[in-house]
């Protein structure tokens, strides 16, 4: 507001103007403090926020059935199902590096060891508290199973075991499968399996960065 106009006005009008200004100021303050609430909880969706629009009150919506996002066609049967021509594959869909194996070990310890134990003998903490005991990975049947079987069990679940595809992304599931293979080998490995000139560390190699991004 232009102050000059105000001061040139006759007294009563000036009083009125001042009162009006005061009112506007108080009003503005009130609106600002009301805005604070609006700014704190803005009418937008943050992950998992309750929605009053959808009947099930979920703001997280499933895509319309049949929708395929770019890059998610999942047309690589081996990578996404672990199967080739309907049979569990004995091949990996991508080459495993040492870093992949490390990540496999880390993911295995997070998602599988509660039941299967870090050793793989099926005696994890949750089993000790009463969950059905899974078979040991060292059973001949599982030692002979193709690697696609492990991927498949994680992806679809198996008997009493739930599926882990929603918790573990697909590439990590393959890394876990590869790590289980390595665990199985630990039981039968001999000193002569180590190539000449290579020393085996007494501790497992987890230090250093495992690849963080998942496929």
């Amino acid at each position, binding site marked *: 507001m232009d102050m000059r106009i105000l001061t040139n006005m006759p007294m009563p009008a000036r009083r009125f103007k001042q009162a009006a200004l005061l009112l506007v100021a108080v009003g503005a303050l009130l609106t600002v403090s009301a805005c604070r609430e609006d700014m704190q909880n803005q009418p937008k969706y*943050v992950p998992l926020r309750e929605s009053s629009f959808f009947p099930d009150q*979920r703001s997280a919506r499933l895509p319309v059935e049949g929708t395929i996002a770019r890059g998610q066609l999942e047309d690589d049967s081996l990578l996404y199902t672990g199967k080739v021509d309907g049979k569990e594959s004995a091949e990996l869909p991508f080459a495993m590096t040492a870093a992949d194996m490390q990540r496999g070990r880390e993911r295995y310890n997070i998602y599988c060891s509660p039941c299967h134990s870090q050793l793989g003998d099926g005696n994890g903490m*949750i089993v000790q508290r009463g969950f059905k005991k899974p078979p040991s990975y060292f059973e001949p049947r599982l030692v002979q199973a193709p690697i696609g079987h492990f991927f498949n069990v994680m992806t679809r679940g198996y008997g009493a075991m739930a599926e882990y595809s929603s*918790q573990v992304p697909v590439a990590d599931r393959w890394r876990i499968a590869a790590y289980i293979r390595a665990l199985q080998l630990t039981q039968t490995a001999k000193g002569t399996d180590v190539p000449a000139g290579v020393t085996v560390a007494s501790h497992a190699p*987890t*230090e*250093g960065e495992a690849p963080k991004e998942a496929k």
Partner: protein
Amino acid sequence: MAQIFHRSANSIAKASILGGLILVVGLLWAALQLQRSPYFTYAGVARPQPVPFPHQHHVAGLGIDCRYCHTTVEVSGFAGIPPTRTCMNCHSQIWTAAPMLEPVRESLRTGKSLVWTRANDLPDFVYFDHSIHVNKGVGCNTCHGRVDQMPLMYNQASLQMEWCLNCHRDPAKNLRPHYVKEDPKNPATMGDQIFNMAYQEPSDSHPVTIREGNTYKTFTSQTGPDGLGTYLAAVNHVRSPRDITSCNTCHR
């Protein structure tokens, strides 16, 4: 003309000016402390939840990793709250008759969501991202406290701007390595230290050894030129305090 005021009025006047000032400053200080107090920030106050989910039992008691449930904490801004199915991975067979878990079973039967009450809730005008903190070496318990000792979840920090800035001004003091040299006798040295609730920063009596290339490097202090935090800030390329204290880091 007779004196209207007694001589002592002088000192009373002075004292009351001083007293008034002290009162005003005191009130301001009290107000500032009050708005930092748990009464306003809710720090340390557990909220009512549909199921009294005990982190203590699941994390310390059973040894379940945070990422088993908070699956996206390393890769996204949002840490993720586990869906009903995740609980049912185990509770399909464990405590299947416990009335305490009835809301979980009902949610699975009917498909209705479990509605948790948030403990940590920033205003919507603040941008926060878990993944960068986790990947650059800030541990969960630096911000959330000893979750493994919480029978019920509460927020440990005030989550006020002051609290964020205290760290952003000197992040090195709070950085930890992802991996330390493994000691088979000490399970806490296994795996990613970000999720280790009992991680201890290096000191003379408790050195921390990490791997650097093909050798090991031992630290006996967190800060200072030889400190672990200083080292990690450099190798993780942590941006300068100037960058991460600028307003548009968090208000965008």
